[in-house]
């Protein structure tokens, strides 16, 4: 009897230990960033492709104010209210003291410099596919932006979602690996896939989520309820979006639909970013979208 009890205790300890190991934040190998010469111009393009300012600029920031990444925007979700943090170049209030490696761990693994897990309101499951070259370039670009000493506002999250360690499990379940759209893609479609699936994190709004907030990768870009409760975020698969590639590229620069209505809602801020990309990148996004299979 005592042996059985001892065995049970041992098993429980091992399961617990395995759990701790499995839910431990992952990190980027520092060697991958060593010797990279960051390209600031490329960093600007990564910054706009990834839409950093759309969440991290101050609420109701003006066009110029969008470059002050003071944080403070609130995102109400089923799990509680998340508040975007200050990621300006201020060394104390922002992330000015971060190394490129710190930024890589945050973007690619949702892991903070103190080892803590970030909530996936920060779309690191998409950014996970970002190249380390682009991370280093973005790091260099972020350092050129103004500092803000605005203090971070804590998230307002209820139990059990306030236990950050649990996010390790969430990441195990939902950090989808690999590209969603695969197969015989052209170079242009491959570039578009990187812009849509990684940097642009389009699926975060355009793909439905399960009860735990994980993306339903099998329903990729098929549209989803609008998290703010009004209307629906449209699907972008070839069956749902019958716009031409030129139509899509035009929408991403001017916001005009093929009927010359204009974008509204959250997409307006997305277009403020995509309008700063190159024509090639906008056309690459369009080419990729035309390859998203009918679900």
């Amino acid at each position: 009897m005592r042996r059985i009890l001892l065995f049970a205790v041992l098993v429980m300890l091992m399961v617990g230990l395995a759990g701790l190991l499995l839910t431990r934040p992952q990190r980027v190998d520092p060697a991958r960033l060593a010797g990279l010469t960051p390209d600031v111009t490329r960093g600007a393009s990564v910054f706009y492709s990834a839409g950093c300012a759309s969440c991290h600029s101050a609420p109701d920031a003006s066009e110029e104010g969008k470059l002050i990444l003071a944080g403070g925007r609130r995102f109400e979700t089923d799990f509680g209210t998340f508040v975007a943090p200050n990621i300006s170049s201020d060394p104390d209030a922002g992330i000015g003291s971060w190394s490129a490696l710190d930024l890589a761990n945050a973007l690619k693994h949702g892991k903070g410099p103190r080892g803590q897990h970030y909530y996936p309101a920060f779309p690191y499951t998409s950014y996970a596919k970002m190249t380390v070259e682009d991370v280093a370039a973005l790091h260099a670009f972020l350092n050129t932006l103004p500092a803000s000493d605005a203090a971070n506002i804590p998230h307002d999250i209820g139990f059990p979602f306030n236990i950050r360690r649990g996010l390790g499990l969430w990441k195990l379940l939902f950090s989808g690996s690999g590209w969603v759209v695969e197969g015989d893609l052209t170079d242009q479609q491959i570039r578009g896939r990187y812009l849509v699936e990684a940097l642009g994190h389009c699926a975060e709004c355009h793909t439905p989520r399960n009860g735990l907030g994980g993306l339903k990768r099998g329903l990729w870009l098929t549209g989803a309820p609008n998290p703010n409760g009004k209307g629906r975020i449209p699907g972008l698969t070839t069956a749902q979006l019958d716009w031409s590639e030129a139509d899509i590229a035009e929408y991403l620069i001017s916001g005009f639909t093929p009927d010359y209505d204009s974008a509204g809602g959250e997409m307006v801020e997305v277009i403020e970013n995509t309008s700063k990309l190159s024509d090639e990148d906008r056309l690459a996004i369009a080419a990729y979208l035309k390859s998203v299979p009918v679900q």
Partner: protein
Amino acid sequence: MMKKSSIFAAGLLSLAVVGTSIAQDSENPAVKARTSIMQLYAFNLGTLGAMAKGEAEYDAEAATRAANNIVVVSQIDQSAMWPAGSDNVSDPSTRALPAIWENFADVGAKGQALADAAVAMQAAAGQDVEALKGAMGQLGGACSACHKAYRAPEN
């Protein structure tokens, strides 16, 4: 008996459907007028957009005519077209949010930004297709700025 009641239900349903489709067109002439203004923008933007997308060959004269029209439309005095009670709460046929009536100064500023973008397009449209494409961005941004703040999403 079952059949009768289901026919009755179908009748009710079709009445409801007709009811909704009637509600699509506003009875309010002010709403009709401002919708027409949007259609005038869209028609002329179509000429410019087709050239920007490469669907139509660039034609400096046609582009200039369309841009001139957009400038003229942007100068229409709309002050009588936004009477109280013509928001989407009072009139389900419009997507105009009540916030418009609370922020007239900001709406005016956004309208001025559109008028400025229209003038910039007027200058660009006759130059070449690259200039036209650049001006489309500013024009679209001005449209979206107002639509983001003051237009309800489509259902």
